């Protein structure tokens, strides 16, 4: 017997997501899966006709969780259009902010948005704090080797202040907090979950207590990881940027300077805290929990990642002249710029395609489709390159229910506010797992000369493979593998912060304090028409912004974001996106409590506010006419 189960809202994500699955109750297999982004904001319509120098602030508000990344893609986009090369310090600072984002965003995702799919506070209450402390020490012994993969380029070797207190007292304190919360009858954020699901019995209570204690502990610590954003960008979420570099001027002679020695010391302290949180908490917990799940045979949820993953590449080691003309890809340290197919067949059999500047500007390589999205194109069966993108909302309602009260969505018609991006008409998964597969394949097959970051990725994958006693192609394309890649990338990001802070120190020491190139600040210096591409590797995956500037204003702007790739509905050929494919690759024990589905979907760290789309001049009148009469002030 098969029944359709709806999960809406999906919590512990950013934005609004609805899932519908059909489960064969005898085989526990998912026979049909539907995912829908259920909100639309239209930010790309809003930036039309604005000053390109301020667009970063608008597009930054696409997401307040992976905050900063859209601002980065946006300033890169405008600089690419206007041929602006930023100073070295600005490049290093942007990379420290990106490393910071990886460290913070991945850690918060694991503990606060994902851990409760694996561990339960109710199980943690049953643990013996003495045994928990002993287990914590044992886990540190078993998995602690991962710490050695982190290179302290700064050489400061800061004393670890937040080392897991593997003592019975530490765990008893947290256990009492949890116990008291449960006894109070007000479970708050822990209320109403499927805590009776048998999966929560898979781990011993002591593992639950370690993880839930760290959930609470890291809730307080996470804020310290992101301090570089506050120093360089003034606040977080939504730190500030400028086109042409960074706003945080540097002076070693002035206490009033945005960046001086004291401010750098604050950043350095945070960079070491990132390393500690990644090395001593996140990675250790992840490996301990992940290994038990994998040993019990939970290697589901790979879905599309087994077939095709995609990335753009990031962390330019030095400033570059242009993205669309190719210099960016010459300078990057993180060579996830590529497409890898069939990784699940073994790294030697996987197919690797580089993805560089030409692919980003070729009208036939990256396109978005709206066949199953609540938008319309002049020709609904054609894909459009972002430079030609159109957003014309066209809501059609569900399959069952009413227009405003859904029962089931119509996967044969339109059913999502997300478009369907495709690479050469094919769907691809993006994200940390995709990046790790691409780098690993590129290095192992000898396509690239590995940078220190690429080497670190390979070493991490090989160490984990040894710990699990499984080859990468078995453990990586799974829900656990997706979760593990994110943890490994947290360490990579923290290490990038450290590396680029060293470069920043060295450059300032050499006498260069410039952070902004203002030669082309004035719109009078710009050509009457320009086109740009701004790319980045957001924590959640490949992020691209495309713009057309005309007479000093934004003529067209398009963001193709990670969750659009992963959460895309079917395309005109019926090809599904990564969310849907992962669900169909997941076993569901109890159809009414599809915990495994949440676990697979959460492993992507979905970010639904990103489902906003584009604009085209021909559609301007249509759009403004439609809303004109009902505009509220």
């Amino acid at each position: 017997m098969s029944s359709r189960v709806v999960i809406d809202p999906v919590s512990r994500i950013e934005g609004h997501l609805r899932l519908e699955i059909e489960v064969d109750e005898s085989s526990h297999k998912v026979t049909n899966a539907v995912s829908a982004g259920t909100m639309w904001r239209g930010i790309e319509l809003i930036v039309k006709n604005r000053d390109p120098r301020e667009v970063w602030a608008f597009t930054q508000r696409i997401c307040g969780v992976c905050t900063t990344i859209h601002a980065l893609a946006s300033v890169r986009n405008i600089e690419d259009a206007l041929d602006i090369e930023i100073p070295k310090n600005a490049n290093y600072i942007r990379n420290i902010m990106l490393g910071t984002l990886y460290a913070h965003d991945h850690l918060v995702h694991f503990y606060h948005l994902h851990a409760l799919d694996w561990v339960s506070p109710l199980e943690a209450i049953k643990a013996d704090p003495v045994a928990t402390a002993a287990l914590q020490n044992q886990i540190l012994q078993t998995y602690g080797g991962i710490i050695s993969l982190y290179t302290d380029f700064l050489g400061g070797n800061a004393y670890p202040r937040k080392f897991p207190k593997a003592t019975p007292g530490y765990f008893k304190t947290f256990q009492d907090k949890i116990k008291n919360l449960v006894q109070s009858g007000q479970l708050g954020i822990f209320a109403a979950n499927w805590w009776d699901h048998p999966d929560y019995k898979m781990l011993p209570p002591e593992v639950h207590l370690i993880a839930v204690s760290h959930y609470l502990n890291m809730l307080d610590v996470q804020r310290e990881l992101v301090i570089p954003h506050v120093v360089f960008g003034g606040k977080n979420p939504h730190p500030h940027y400028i086109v042409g570099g960074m706003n945080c001027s540097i002076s070693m002679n002035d206490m009033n300077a945005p960046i001086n020695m004291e401010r750098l010391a604050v950043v350095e302290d945070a960079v070491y805290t990132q390393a500690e949180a990644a090395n001593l908490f996140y990675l250790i917990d992840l490996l301990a929990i992940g290994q038990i799940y994998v040993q019990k045979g939970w290697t589901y949820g790979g879905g599309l990642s087994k077939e095709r993953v995609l990335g753009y590449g990031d962390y330019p080691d030095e400033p570059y002249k242009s993205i669309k003309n190719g210099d960016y890809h010459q300078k990057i340290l993180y060579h996830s710029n590529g497409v890898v197919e069939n990784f699940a067949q073994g790294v030697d059999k996987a197919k690797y395609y580089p993805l560089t500047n030409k692919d980003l500007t070729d009208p036939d390589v990256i396109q978005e489709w709206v066949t199953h999205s609540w938008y319309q194109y002049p020709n609904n069966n054609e894909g459009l390159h972002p430079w030609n993108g159109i957003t014309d909302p066209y809501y059609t309602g569900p399959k069952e229910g009413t227009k405003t009260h859904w029962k089931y969505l119509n996967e044969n018609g339109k059913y999502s506010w997300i478009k369907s991006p495709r690479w050469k008409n094919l769907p691809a998964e993006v994200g940390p797992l995709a990046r790790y597969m691409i780098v690993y394949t590129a290095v192992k097959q000898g396509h690239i000369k590995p940078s220190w970051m690429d080497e670190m990725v390979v070493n991490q994958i090989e160490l984990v493979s040894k710990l699990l006693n499984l080859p990468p192609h078995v453990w990586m394309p799974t829900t656990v593998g997706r979760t593990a890649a994110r943890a490994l990338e947290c360490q990579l990001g923290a290490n990038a912060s450290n590396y680029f802070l060293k470069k920043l120190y060295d450059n300032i020491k050499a006498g260069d304090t410039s952070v902004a190139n203002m030669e082309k600040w004035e719109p009078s210096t710009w050509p009457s028409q320009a086109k740009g591409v701004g790319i980045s590797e957001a924590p959640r995956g490949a992020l691209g912004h495309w713009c057309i500037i005309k007479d000093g204003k934004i003529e067209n702007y398009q963001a193709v974001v990670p969750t659009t790739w992963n959460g895309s509905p079917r395309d005109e050929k019926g090809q599904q996106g990564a969310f849907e494919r992962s669900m169909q690759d997941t076993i569901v024990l109890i159809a009414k409590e599809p915990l495994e589905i949440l676990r697979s979907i959460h492993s992507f760290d979905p970010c639904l506010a990103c489902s906003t789309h584009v604009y085209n001049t021909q559609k301007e009148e249509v759009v403004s006419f439609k809303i004109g009469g009902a505009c509220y002030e």
Partner: protein
Amino acid sequence: MDGKETFWEALKRHGVSRREFMKFSAIITGLMGLPPAFIPKVVEAMETKPRVPVIWVHGLECTCCSESFIRSATPLASDVLLTMISLEYDDTLSAAAGEALEKHKEDIMKKYHGEYILAVEGNPPLGDDGMYCVVGGKPFLEGLKKAAEGAKAVIAWGSCASWGCVQAAKPNPTTAVPIHKVITDKPIVKIPGCPPIPEVMTGTIMYTVLFGKLPPLDSQGRPKMFYGNRIHDTCYRRPFFNEGMFVEQFDDEGAKKGWCLYKMGCRGPTTYNSCGNLRWYNGLSYPIQSGHGCIGCSADGFWDNGNFYSREQNIPSIGTESNANKVGAVAVGAAAAGAIAHGVISKIRSGKKED
């Protein structure tokens, strides 16, 4: 205990000593902008008030308010969540999902009818029957109105809920509206900012919960304690403004010396918020300190008040004593005598032609 436990009891359970409790009470009294004479009242409130259930809903937004909230240091977000309030529903943090979570919300709304606080992040779109933002298969607008019915009070988190924010910027494709357009019969406290400062969020919660009522509000519905001054009034670069020492271009000598960013398009003179005095991250920094002008993210309609890099042509008044309500209403367009005077000084200093 069924939610009737007091703060002090809850803190005691968590192993907090009486001495620590008194110290904590003193800190939060200061945080809420109250004089030390109020400490006994805060202590009394904490000893007698139960944990208040909070339902936190999300409309059109980017979740930056939730992210900001968990960055709070004084008090720590973990203390607020586990000891002070009972966050019963939140799309971002709740463990449960789907029907189980929606049913729990219904139960809480019934059980605590008239007692819970509704916190709203984001706003409802009115276009296409509200179907640009759908939660549980229904328009967010519908759920919002329903949750507001039984709420004791409503908190509008951030500029989305307070004013409309980025999705309501021109041409507002979804017809997004601030929540006071659709919730008209409940007291609403607005905590604007994109996002608001974390301690402004937790401080407002603390006040509301401890005293069982909303903090004193200005005519626009913002707590006076946090939105009583313009950023300009308490800006650490203000002396440079007064002396006519301005950054003329990003990364110039003035920028390195931390001079005033007014000419770079700073909205500090027209924006009411605590960035100048509280700053972000327990006083660590704020946008102006990092070298970027204020973009006015807590001001109504800030996306459409002109380009962020164009110099504010008019500054309402130079005095810090000027009334926030009056100035807020005429933020753009008031006399700018002071600014012009300073512009002249600057011209003399820099020897450059004024634009």
